[in-house]
């Protein structure tokens, strides 16, 4: 589904503090599979995720989405790809405070201009699926960590993306909630979605749900299971 070739990513390029976060990544992410990127802090996992998710462009190299080179596309087109094809679950959940769970979930649908009724129905369906229907009108800051993550998952799925990207999804959850998350992840995989996540949590990377684990260090891929 996504192919990366010769990806390098530099920060502060040309300055004294120039730093190469990714250094020659060749990787193919297969459709309908759960892939995990594993590695210590600073290994380049999150940077790689931002490049796959069209949140950032590589300094060098090509990104192909279903054969089409998207690494050179202007910002507008990348945003459209991100909105239509990817759903994001962030480590800090990144929900907008002051808004209800339901309002947060439907945010990615705003720029699509889809009918409000349709969007709300979809949000209700997702909330019910994750047993969160009773919290729909609660402001997100009143929700527990697990509930906030489920809201973030609903938000990632509102536009029905093919690929779900999750950055350290269990980093802020206890063991019980992390197990619950893996259950949700299994459900998403069963629906045929492609999932790419970063983690160094054994509960995630050693789970049966994850079909492929790629180890990273110093901006390079070092090992694959």
């Amino acid at each position, binding site marked *: 589904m996504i192919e990366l070739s010769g990806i390098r990513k530099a920060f502060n390029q040309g300055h004294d503090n120039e730093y190469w976060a990714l250094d020659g990544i060749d990787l193919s992410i297969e459709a309908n599979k759960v892939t995990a990127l594993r590695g210590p802090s600073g290994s380049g996992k999150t940077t790689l995720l931002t490049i796959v998710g069209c*949140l950032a462009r590589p300094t060098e190299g090509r990104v192909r989405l279903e054969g089409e080179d998207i690494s050179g596309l202007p*910002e507008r087109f990348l945003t459209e790809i991100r*909105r239509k094809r990817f759903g994001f679950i*962030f480590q800090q959940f*990144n929900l907008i405070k*002051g808004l209800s769970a339901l309002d947060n979930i439907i945010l990615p649908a*705003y*720029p699509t201009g889809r009918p409000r009724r349709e969007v709300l129905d979809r949000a209700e369906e997702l909330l019910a699926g994750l047993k969160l229907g009773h919290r729909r009108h609660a402001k997100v800051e009143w929700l527990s960590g697990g509930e906030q993550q489920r809201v973030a998952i609903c938000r990632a799925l509102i536009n029905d993306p093919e690929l779900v990207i999750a950055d350290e999804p269990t980093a802020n959850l206890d063991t019980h909630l992390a197990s619950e998350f893996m259950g949700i992840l299994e459900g998403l995989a069963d629906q045929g979605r492609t999932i790419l996540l970063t983690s160094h949590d054994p509960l995630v990377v050693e789970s049966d749900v994850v079909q492929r684990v790629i180890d990273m260090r110093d901006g390079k891929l070092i090992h694959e299971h």
Partner: protein
Amino acid sequence: MKLWLAKQRYLIDFTLASLARRKTRNLGLLLVYTVLVFMLASVTLYTHALRQEAARVLAASPEVIVQRMVAGRHDLIPPGYMEKIGRIRGVQKMEGRLWGYYYDAVTKANYTFMVPAENPPAAGEIVVGPALERSRGLAKNNGISFRSYSGKLHTFIVADVLPQASELVSADLVLMSEQNFRAFFDYPAGHYTDIALSVANPQEVRNVAVKLAAALPDARPILRDEVLRTYASIYDWREGIVLALLSAAILAFGILAWEKASGLSAEEKREIGILKAIGWETGDVIKMKFWEGLLISLTAFLVGFVAAYVHVFHFAASLFEPVLKGWAVLYPRFQLTPHIDGLQVATLFFFTVVPYAAAVLVPIWKAAITDPDSVMRS
């Protein structure tokens, strides 16, 4: 088009929700903004209405007034002047006028004593202006005494009070008969204060003035247009004074608006990052903030303008009245005719709404073009 409308609706929905989330900040800003628009609109509406009112009242005044000058000071018109003026072509009608100022020690105010051209009061009677009616507590058929400059006491009966509609120029007026006037001020017979001329052809007014100056070198013709211009410049000047005083408030608001609008909080920047990461375009974020700025500034503009309208036309601009209206101790009290000038509204709109919208948009644009991956690193 339908899609575009749906998107705008979503953006406005989100904007309203955003505004509600920062209630205290936005209400504070709205309040200061509204007060500013209110003050500016009050001053401009009021002075504009005053100019209109003065022009309306003066529309019926004579085209030319002739005064006689001695050593650069206004002096009485001696007998024989009228005959000389009568020979100037273009003068349709002329009339010698009698008027003068009287200082009333009781109210510590100056009154204008005058003999009207038509229907003068009967001997021993006067007609007073509304301000005088109020300040001396006069009513019809009351008696009032004035001590003349020669020290003699003169007593008059108030026959009538002038209507309020003309109060802007008649507040301190006392009308009396010619006989009483001459007796009160010891005016010699055949002398007048000045002469009012009617000129049939408006194009001829300047020519008549030139001929007058040639025939009577010590005469000073005053044209109606000049009086109107003087009134207009007096109000312009007063408006300028008030606006100069308000400029400190305007500057303070400018700083506040810039600070509030441009100083995006870390939370707002984070939100912009989130919106971009989940698929909002830079344009969507800017539009959303644009709606936010527009809603605040339009609300402030409308509320401020309506409040100013009510203040000026229903409460007689009580806040600015002493500065803008009075030129005497006796302040006229009158109801202004409501009048709104499109250009004036547009100017006010331009100077209040546009700077705010710009102050909002520039920093948002800066924040909105940042890379969406920043949100992954927070």
